[in-house]
């Protein structure tokens, strides 16, 4: 077998193992939360008999162990269970929400990743000169401000004063892609600002590290322009670290946008999670946590695989 296939298979197997470990952690975590689910559904005035019946119905009297495997068995068959609060199927309710979140995260990534990498390249080209300092200064400033603050600033200036984009990012199926983009323009802007600095700084650092190599001098002595030296000779050797930090930020875009969704009232996973935490709806919280864990692990596997493939020594063994 080609060594790359073997490495990739190893990474994927490890990822699956990690996902199982995460599922156990999620289950234990929700298990040790204080309070009783039956009590919180029925409220303070419930009779002991009603509580006992509900516990029986929900299977709360069984051991934690068998409940975990029941839950896991269901998950493996695509059944995330029903929400306690409204008895709706979680997989169905979450499907649409997840789609919305991925839509927002995807567009944010589409803007922020190329922008961050380009800014990183420009910063290297003008290292320690004013363009570099300005890029670093601005991106660090945006990452230093909390998301909600940037969000409200944008709402106040762009939406209320200038009236360019709506302040509330509500989308539905009947809207065209352009209308949807118009609706989510502000959340995209906020998310881009939040993840930009990290990716830009990493791109800059990774390429500067490569710029120390003797083959960069070779390229300079060939008469290449400074930007071509960076693009053709430095960047291909800096892909692995850059992809790693890009993937961590993409994962953040999916699982970390709770606050942004709440600010812009966007119907995504974040809103969904926050709503059901408030209602103490354990199955929904578990399901969301598991999906988030899967996204994180999945994107990191992708980063690993890209790093492996970008290494010519592994791709073309002797």
């Amino acid at each position, binding site marked *: 077998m080609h060594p790359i296939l073997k490495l990739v298979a190893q990474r994927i197997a490890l990822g699956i193992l990690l996902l199982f470990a995460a599922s156990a952690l999620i289950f234990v975590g929700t298990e040790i939360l204080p309070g009783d689910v039956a009590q919180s559904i029925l409220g303070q005035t419930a009779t002991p008999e009603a509580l006992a019946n509900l516990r029986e119905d929900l299977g709360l009297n069984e051991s934690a162990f068998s409940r975990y495997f029941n839950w896991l068995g269901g998950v493996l068959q695509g059944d995330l269970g029903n929400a306690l609060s409204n008895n709706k199927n979680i997989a169905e309710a979450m499907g649409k929400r997840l789609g919305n979140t991925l839509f927002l995260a995807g567009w944010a990534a589409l803007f922020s990743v190329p922008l961050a990498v380009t800014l990183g390249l420009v910063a290297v080209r003008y290292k320690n000169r004013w363009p570099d300092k300005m890029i670093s200064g601005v991106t660090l400033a945006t990452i230093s401000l909390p998301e909600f603050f940037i969000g409200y600033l944008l709402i106040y200036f762009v939406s209320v004063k200038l009236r360019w984009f709506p302040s509330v990012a509500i989308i539905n199926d009947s809207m065209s892609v352009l209308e949807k983009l118009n609706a989510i323009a502000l959340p995209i802007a906020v998310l881009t600002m939040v993840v930009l600095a990290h990716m830009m700084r990493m791109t800059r650092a990774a390429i500067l590290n490569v710029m120390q*190599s*003797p*083959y960069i*001098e*070779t*390229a*300079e*002595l*060939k*008469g*290449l*322009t400074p930007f071509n030296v960076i693009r*053709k*000779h430095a960047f*291909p*050797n800096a892909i692995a670290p850059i992809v790693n930090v890009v993937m961590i930020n993409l994962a953040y875009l999916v699982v970390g946008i709770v606050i942004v969704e709440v600010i812009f009232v966007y119907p995504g996973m974040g809103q969904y999670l926050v709503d059901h935490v408030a209602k103490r709806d354990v199955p929904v919280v578990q399901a969301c946590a598991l999906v988030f864990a899967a996204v994180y692990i999945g994107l990191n596997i992708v980063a690993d695989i890209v790093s492996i493939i*970008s290494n*010519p*020594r592994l791709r*073309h063994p*002797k």
Partner: protein
Amino acid sequence: MANPLVEIKNLKIEATVYPPGEKPHDIVIVENVSLTLERGQVMGLIGESGAGKSTIGLAALAYGRGGIRLSGEIFVNGRDILKASAKSLRKLRGKEVTYVSQSAAASFNPARRLMEQVIETTLLHKLSNKRDAEARAVELFAALGLPDPENIGRRFPHQVSGGQLQRVMTAMALCPKPDLIIFDEPTTALDVTTQIDVLAAIKNAIKETGVAALYITHDLAVVAQVTDEIMVLRNGKMVEHGPVKQIIEAPIEAYTKELVSAHSIEHEEKPPRDNPVLVVKNISASYGGGVQVLSDISVELHPGQTLAVVGESGSGKSTLARVITGLLPPSQGSISFDGKELPKALKQRSLEELRELQMIYQMADVAMNPRQTVGTIIGRPLQLYFGIRGAEKRRMVIELLDQIEMGEKFIDRYPAELSGGQKQRVCIARSLAAKPKLIICDEVTSALDPLVADGILRLLLDLQKEQQVAYLFITHDLATVRSIADSIAVMYQGKLVRYGPKSEVLSPPFDDYTDLLLSSVPEMRIGWLESVLKSRKMESAGN
């Protein structure tokens, strides 16, 4: 043609240094160097490290490493390149002047195929279309003696050997048909047996294409084979300049004479006395249970003697050192030290066993903690093995510093404040502090200039006479072996091909490999390269 190809007038090169704890100040790297190079002429620049020879070579491309400032005049094809714009410099670089560096392995972009990199300049400067450029590259690969010239360009740098990469880099420099090529120590990083073929390929290519060249090296014997003229540099100043024959056979300046006669240490072989301090018996070893890197090695070493282990890279000589020190437990065989069998693995050995066997490495730089003073570094074994502290320790450290001819004033310095030779001396003092019976010296002079290396070898020999310590001296340099060894072990591909007292190993009849190794050592006479290539019995493996 009225104008010479290159005319350098009063070149001065300066840099600003930032020493720790001091104010930044300017230093002069090169001063008042002038030279002219006609079309098709080959000139050698020779000197020790720090002589400014690479800096001058790069100046011909108007390039300065790390904030170096060039002043004076450098005319290439009649135009002063120090006054040229960045855009016009890009036309000079890669089109009129190209560069071959010391380490081709590091100078190729690991992420791109060789062919792309070889023809990059030709395409960049729009000298021909892609098909013609590739055809020319294949021609050059063939002319430089690369195997499978049609397909080697499709490989990545890590897929070819160091000697081959150096040839590919020469092809890369020749591809755009430049007027001048700067060769910066192009064979220094290669094994002697590989160096000779690369040298022949370079010489041939220069002759066939009629390109002019500046050939930079510290090895006078090498430069004598390829150039017409030699300029000797020292501390950034020209010492002597003349035709090869005059420089080699009738040097005028004292410094040139010293360079020509380096490696002048005479060492009489001593007969073995007493019982051997080290007996290595039938050792075989492999890394991670994979390919066997040592098979069935047996050698002996007596007190006060030096056993030189020679071979090219990959011959297993450093692995042998790792096995003896216990870093790599052998799969078979035994090691006795002073009559007792040593435990195979490092962890099983007692402190006393560790003390008696010390090591000195090639890179003194990385073998010392940069944040510790010389006193701390040398004092550490005293404290560890003998429990000596305080004033007593300081007294003994000073004694050791005197032994290595450095003295008390160095005791509070940091490694960064020492020269290459001084660093290696500190490493020697550190190993002596343990009062060992055996010191393994792994290529200890390979990174040093010839004159400095000579000093280190003399010191090692003096110390051996005084303290009767035995050396296992690992090296690829046969001149060093001649200077210091009592017995020699020649290794090739993990096997011992020849072993015995120096006088026997170095006298005929030779086996094929020892013959190749001995005949590949550059000799300081014109025409040596051609004569040796004719008389060889065996091809070198590093190609």
